[in-house]
C-alpha cells in the first residue's frame, strides 16, 4: 500500500492561504482594515526573513516597516491576491538588497565602520539573553554561515526561502521569478552540496 507522502515542511501558525486570501483581495481593492489584518498576519515572518538576511535586529525592524509601507502603496497593483505572500517576500528581498547596497556605499565613505557584535541587539529589541544563549546563537550562525558559503547565490536563496522561511516551491518561484523546476533544481543542488559535505548523509546512511 502506498503511503501518503508527508509534507516536506509543516507550516507554523496561520500560514495557510485561507487565513489571508480574503483580506488580501479586499486590500487590493483599497480596504485599509484588510491591509492592517495582513500586517498582523505577516509582520513577524517578514521581520524574521529580513533578520536572516541582515543579522541586525534594528535593521530588520526598519526594513520590515519599509516593506509594508511599500506593500501598502502598491498593493492595488497586485493582480492575484493568492500571490500576496510571494509578492511580500519579493518586496522584502528587494528591500534587503537595497539595504546592503546602501550599506556598501556608506562603508565606502566611512573609513572605520564601527564594529558590532551580533548580540548588539540585546537590550535594544532582542530578548535578554544569557551568555550561554549568546554563545549558542553565535555558534549556530557560524555554522549556518559555513554551510551557506558552499552554495551559489541562487542556491542559498532557494534553500533559505524553503527551510528558513518555509515557503512552498510555488511561492519561491513567485519570489524569485523562476520556474518551479528551476527552483527545484537549485534546491536539489543546495541540499546535495550541504548534505554531501556534511554529516547529513552520514546520518542517513547509517540508519
Amino acid at each position: 500500500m502506498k503511503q501518503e507522502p508527508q509534507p516536506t515542511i509543516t507550516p507554523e501558525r496561520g500560514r495557510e492561504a485561507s487565513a489571508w486570501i480574503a483580506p488580501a483581495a479586499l486590500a487590493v481593492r483599497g480596504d485599509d482594515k484588510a491591509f492592517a489584518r495582513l500586517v498582523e498576519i505577516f509582520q513577524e515572518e517578514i521581520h524574521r526573513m529580513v533578520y536572516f538576511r541582515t543579522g541586525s535586529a534594528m535593521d530588520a525592524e526598519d526594513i520590515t516597516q519599509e516593506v509594508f509601507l511599500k506593500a501598502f502603496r502598491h498593493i492595488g497593483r497586485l493582480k492575484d491576491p493568492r500571490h500576496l505572500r510571494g509578492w511580500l517576500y519579493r518586496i522584502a528581498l528587494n528591500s534587503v538588497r537595497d539595504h546592503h547596497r546602501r550599506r556598501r556605499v556608506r562603508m565606502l565613505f566611512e573609513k572605520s565602520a564601527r564594529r558590532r557584535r551580533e548580540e548588539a541587539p540585546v537590550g535594544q529589541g532582542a530578548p535578554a539573553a544569557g551568555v550561554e544563549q549568546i554563545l549558542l546563537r553565535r555558534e549556530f550562525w557560524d555554522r549556518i554561515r559555513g554551510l551557506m558559503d558552499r552554495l551559489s547565490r541562487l542556491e542559498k536563496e532557494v534553500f533559505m526561502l524553503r527551510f528558513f522561511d518555509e515557503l512552498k516551491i510555488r511561492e519561491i518561484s513567485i519570489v524569485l521569478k523562476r520556474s518551479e523546476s528551476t527552483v527545484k533544481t537549485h534546491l536539489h543542488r543546495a541540499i546535495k552540496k550541504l548534505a554531501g559535505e556534511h554529516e547529513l548523509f552520514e546520518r542517513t546512511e547509517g540508519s
Partner: protein
Amino acid sequence: MTKKGSYHLNQDDLVTAVVDEEDLAEEVRGHLATCSACRKRKEILEGTLTSLGHTARAYVPALTKTVRIPVGAGRRARSFLFPLRPAVATALGGLAVAVFGWWLLGTGPFPGTGPDHGTPGIWEDALTEEVAWPAEDPLPAVYRDMADILTEERSSGFMDFVAPLPEEGQGISEQGGGIRSC
C-alpha cells in the same frame, strides 16, 4: 535505485524525495512507499533540514515595534488599464501613444515607441509585471553599480548576510521617511 524493488534510494533520489516526492520516478516512489529503511532515511534528512530552519527562527529576536502605516501614506492608484492583460494593455497603450503622436506632430509615430518598447514610467511599473513591486532604490545608478561591484567581489554575494557578521557596520539602516510617525 536501478532495478525495480531491488535497491534502496541513492542520494540523488533521497534529495529529490525531500524536494518533491512527486518528481521521483514511479518505481522509486513505489519503493519509498514500501521500504521503511528508505523512508526513515528521507525523514532523517528532511528532519535535519527542517530543524535547521526551526533553530534559525528560534534565534530571531522578537519584533519590538509593530508595523504601522502612517496616515498620510498614499496608495498608488491602480491604472485604468490595469485589469487588462499586459500584452493587450501594452498594445492599447502603444496605440494611444501613436495616436497622440500623430495628433501632436501631425506626423507618423515617434521612433522607437509603440507596443513593444512602451514608454518607461507608464508601462514598466504597472502593466508589464505579473508581480509588480516598487523599485525605489534611493541610490543614484552610479552608486548602485559600485555597490554591486563590491558585493560581487565578496565570495558569495549579498547573501553573505544570511548570518550576522561581527564586522557589520552599525546604524546603517534606512529610516523610511515618516514610517513610524503614525
